[in-house]
């Protein structure tokens, strides 16, 4: 009897361990008190509202959105043709290309950030925003290539040949026949890239300057100085944003098929 209950009970505890903390910060963000404590002292929306009034949060939120959207977009612009070349052509040095574009996933982000600071920002004077953009693009590139390649490999390559034989040009075949069929994969790659970039901390650690920093870095800095529930409120908001996006993606795209 005890044995039959052992595994389900562990699972229950695991779920409490994994999800409980998240529920607690959600609860803490509705606190009426001025310091972070649990159980929350009273119920109010003041911390949630405060998040929107902190100027640095607004700026870093915009920065993070820019990096996540722009970086993922740039990664896809380069990643889609590269994936196409790897899946449909006899590409010379195919393995080398694959290794190079997927390397950023293997090397810890903090090293990439420091390397860009050392060799781009300091000696050449590359603006920090640009360095951040490059770093986030490089970081997302492996995900873009992996997800797009997977959906290309699920698509029969002969439909492009069929389109060409029916009078389409090679490029036309890509836009008429390939792109409509890998749209789901591309959108999934975008969402995965967005979430990865938006939540990314180590890459951006060394790449911050006056007025230029990503939201998670800003949060790290804020929580060292101020001990109020606004970080909890912001965390909850961000968490719901991520969950909402992923949930919608799963619902409408079958996101998990691609990732």
């Amino acid at each position, binding site marked *: 009897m005890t*044995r039959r209950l*052992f*595994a*389900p009970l*562990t*699972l229950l505890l*695991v*779920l409490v*361990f*994994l*999800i409980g*903390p998240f529920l*607690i910060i959600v609860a803490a963000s509705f606190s009426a008190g001025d310091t*972070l*404590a*649990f*159980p929350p002292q009273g119920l109010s929306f003041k911390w949630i509202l405060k998040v929107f009034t902190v100027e640095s949060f607004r700026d870093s939120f915009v920065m993070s959105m820019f990096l996540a959207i722009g970086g993922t977009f740039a990664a896809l612009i*380069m*990643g889609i*043709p*590269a994936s196409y*070349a*790897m899946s*449909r*052509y*006899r*590409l010379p040095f195919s393995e*080398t*290309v694959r290794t*190079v*574009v997927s*390397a*950023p996933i*293997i*090397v*810890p982000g*903090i*090293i*990439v950030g*420091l*390397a*860009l600071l*050392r*060799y781009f920002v300091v000696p050449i004077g590359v603006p920090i925003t640009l360095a951040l953009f490059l770093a986030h693009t*490089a970081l997302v590139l492996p995900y873009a290539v992996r997800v797009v390649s997977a959906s290309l490999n699920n698509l029969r390559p002969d439909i492009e040949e069929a389109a060409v034989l029916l009078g389409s040009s*090679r490029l036309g075949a890509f836009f008429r026949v390939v792109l409509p069929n890998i749209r789901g994969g591309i959108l999934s790659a975008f969402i995965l890239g967005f979430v990865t970039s938006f939540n990314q*901390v*180590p890459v951006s*650690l*060394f790449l911050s300057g006056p007025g230029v920093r990503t939201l*998670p870095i800003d949060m*790290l800095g804020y*929580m060292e100085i101020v001990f109020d529930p606004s970080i*909890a409120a912001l*965390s*909850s908001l*961000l*968490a719901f944003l*991520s969950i909402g996006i*992923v949930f919608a993606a799963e619902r409408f795209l079958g996101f998990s098929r691609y990732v």
Partner: protein
Amino acid sequence: MFQNRTEALALALPAAIFAALVFLVPVILLLSEGFRVADSWTFSAYADFFAQPLNRTVFLRTLKLGALVTLVAAIIGYAAAYAIVSLPAGTKGRMIGLVVLPLMISPVARTYAWIVILGRTGIVNHALMAVGLSDAPIRILFSETAVFIGLLQLFLPLMIISLVSALENLPKDVVPAARVLGANWLQVFWKIILPLTREGLVVGGTLVFTGSMTAYITPAILGGSKVLMLETLMYQQVTVANNFVAASVIAFILVVMSFAANILLKRIATARNRS
């Protein structure tokens, strides 16, 4: 399969050149710094690095925490994964969703939650004092325990999903067959389940181990400067000590470990494809 090589290169090169210029070249330059002291190639920076007791402590602590988190994640992971695969299909999908859900939430937010729980005025202290086990708040934050808890929560889902897919591929009826042949549950686990899910365990273990070893946020928030790990030490070396050689040494250690893990994972993947 198209034959045109020029076209293929034109499509693939922008991404490859970008990754090489923005990523590969600067990273290799950075890593080389640790081998360049006073304009000559040497390992002296590594000797210097490990000569410092603090660095040794941090290195060993990082290894220890990585190993401990992996071990505990494996034990809990097996039980949780076993429970998940025994569920009916619909519930199983939802459970996997719940396990994966935290991966989508910002690690900063996930780690921050532990401050609420483990802090001086947090839940645990509240509970301890309410029950009377302690009359003043005890310090849990900024300890190895706190970092361990944070890392375990961060990476446990990776172990569970690896083990779930390994257990799902377990040949049908081997467990009942072993039971009928007289094995008790412990023997079933050691002699049947463990050998047959070894690959999944190695995959999950590698992900958890490298994730823990290269973690920044968790030790930064829950460990502070008291419980440094390799990445937080690296950050300190750069921002406080301005010691880029030491930072390069740490970077090299991290890269070597990540690559070793990646090669291991690739081996497993190819071996699996072949069989």
